[in-house]
């Protein structure tokens, strides 16, 4: 047993150096050299100021912008407190909150067609989902158009341009990145 323990200590120490330090640090070096934008969080700057990350969702409240999904991350879209509601299908708390969300969405979007799509009334798993479904974007289009004094048709055309389809035609779901479409609405070119 003593011998096993001695070997254990040595194997532990050696493998920590190799797998716990050299490996991740070398990977960091490689990643910074090969893919610096992604490795540093896919940050987006406008006029030299950082406004967000293209992979992290944000809170949007003004009618002239597309809104994301409800978020359970901290006070909303907090990347340091990621997570979902973790409420089950028979949770009164969940159903009450969903009912409120639906009512608020209806009030903000009086001209929207049909019931709100499911992703707009449910919290994501991460609380920082950067996307909404194309249906949710089209559903909000009348409100965005009205707030901007433009036509629904022109907003719809922008959505159509921004939709990302399934990867290779079959992976995942079609989606619209909320930050990117809002920057496009403002006509801002992100750096």
């Amino acid at each position, binding site marked *: 047993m003593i011998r*096993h*323990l001695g*070997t*254990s200590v*040595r*194997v*532990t120490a050696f*493998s920590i150096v190799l*797998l*716990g*330090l050299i490996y*991740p640090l070398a*990977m*960091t070096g*490689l990643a*910074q050299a090969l893919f610096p934008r992604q*490795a*540093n*969080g896919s*940050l987006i700057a406008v006029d030299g*100021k*950082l*406004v967000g990350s293209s*992979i*992290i969702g*944000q*809170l949007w409240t*003004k009618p002239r*912008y597309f809104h994301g999904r409800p978020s359970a991350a901290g006070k909303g879209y*907090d990347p340091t*407190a*990621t*997570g*979902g*509601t*973790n*409420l*089950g*299908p*028979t*949770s009164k708390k969940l*159903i009450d909150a*969903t009912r409120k969300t*639906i009512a608020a969405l209806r009030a903000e979007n009086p001209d929207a067609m049909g019931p709100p*799509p*499911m*992703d707009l009334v*449910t919290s994501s*798993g*991460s609380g*920082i*989902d*950067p*996307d*909404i479904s194309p249906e949710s974007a089209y559903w909000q289009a009348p409100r965005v158009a009205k707030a901007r004094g433009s036509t629904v048709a022109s907003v719809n055309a922008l959505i159509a341009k921004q939709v990302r389809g*399934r*990867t290779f035609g079959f*992976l*995942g*779901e079609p989606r619209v990145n909320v930050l990117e479409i809002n920057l496009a609405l403002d006509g801002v070119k992100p750096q």
Partner: protein
Amino acid sequence: MTGFGWLQAVIFFAIVLAVTKPLGTYMARVFEGERTWLTPVLAPLEKVIYRLCGVRDAEEMSWYAYALSMLAFSLIGLAYLYVLLRTQKWLPFNPQHVDNMSPDLAWNTAVSFTTNTNWQFYSGETAMSYLSQMAGLAWHNFVSAAVGIAIAVAVVRGLVRTNVKTLGNFWVDLTRCSLYVLLPTSIVLGLFLVWQGVPQNLHAYQAVHSIEGFAQTITGGPMGSQEVIKELGTNGGGFVNANSASPNENPTPLTNFVEMLLIFSLGAGLTYMYGKMVKDTRQGWAIFSAMAILFVAGFAVAYWAEAAGNPIVHQIGAAGGNLEGKECRFGVAASAFFATVTTDTSCGAVNSMHDSFTALGGLVPLVNMQLGEIVFGGVGSGLYGMIVFVVLTVFIAGLMVGRTPEYLGKKVERREVQFAILAALVTPVLCLVPTAIAAVLPAGLATLGNNGPHGFSEILYGFTSTNANNGSAFAGLGPNLFYNLLTGVNMMFGRFAVAIPALALAGALAGKKAIPESSGTFTTHSAIFVALLIGVIVIVGALTFLPADSLGPIVEHLLMLRGKLF
């Protein structure tokens, strides 16, 4: 359900099937000490490790010495991680100035990562320094996976060898697995994940101000290097709290697909390695088939339930499948699929919150774990867990026809069956007894996130997951002293109380002589055997867990249909 959802599943399975043989062949070469294409690069490093660590690589070990080495190594790793978490505040690579962890939480986390469980009662983004993530958790992700595979290889050797007492050398298996299998894959696919958007940096979190003027803190860290081994080693412990639901860990549908492949590929490859090592690949494919059938059945139910959605939400005016706790880029199909994959194996990474699944959608991950994580399973632990079931099946088949049961030319006798039963009893006992205790203690009910039957499901899921070394959660269940301590003990037994009987079983089998096949020998690579094996797994699982599952997800489903809220 959509055609795209099923297409993803079909293509995924085709790829798993395609990599099973090459991966299995490669691993068989690695563990039989033969040359591989990486030998010229890695052999010198391997030799240095043996010399520096005092490993006598030519020395063979009995099952007992093998188990002792494995226990000693795990114990040192456990103590090391505990100390690291208790002192991380004063150590380097801590740009967020993360504080030291409390003793009970550090114990829980240290056990969790040592046992390949990766149950997480903490939030990575605020509770872990980068050093703890890299040199603590990710290091454990490598070695706990390698330990699992090493045990599986030793168990297979026990089946192959005759008239000997030894099962190989633990240190050599551990080293070769880390160097030849885990490290090269992690380097290549880790960089792939970064290319797709997973951060890999060492600086502090970045403050940004949104267009509407809200402040936001963008998290970072050495995530890519950890994400890849987290999936490959079926560990599942997220860098951040939301795990693979977070766009940091899993930014695109393609990373999602690759992460699922990483979770499944070694487990699938090990079945082929098994066939290769026992010199009859049909035996490996028989096990593969049994796993595949259970896998498809689980996905079909989960996908159907999640696509159907929550009727209560439909009544209050929203349409569609259940997206609560799911990400837009994955949708219902890829989320139900990930949930099935991660619980068939002992991975436990999640790309959606299982707690918010519909009742039957949540039942699938629960049942997958209750069956003992043998559907491809944890790397290594899935194979040796399945071999335990194979021995039981052979025994039951022998009883049915009144012959002495044999497997691979070895008589299965009293001792072997005792060890197999012991290993098979661990899951039900350690899952159900603590659940019953928690359900009647105030401390067990204090941190539930949901009321009614769903609250019970949270407890049941918690103990099932920890003892199956899965680590996924109905995450509404919060930590307290009671859960930190009890789930810690549970994870420990879940790992070692299966691994040690499995090694003992292998030791007993290695000492036996081979008997020639006769006309009365029950073939263990036929469709009949696969059906019988699935039957044994399902019946043992159902008889044990149906009563408990009825009190949780099953009754909740019936109440959900009637619109009852808690």
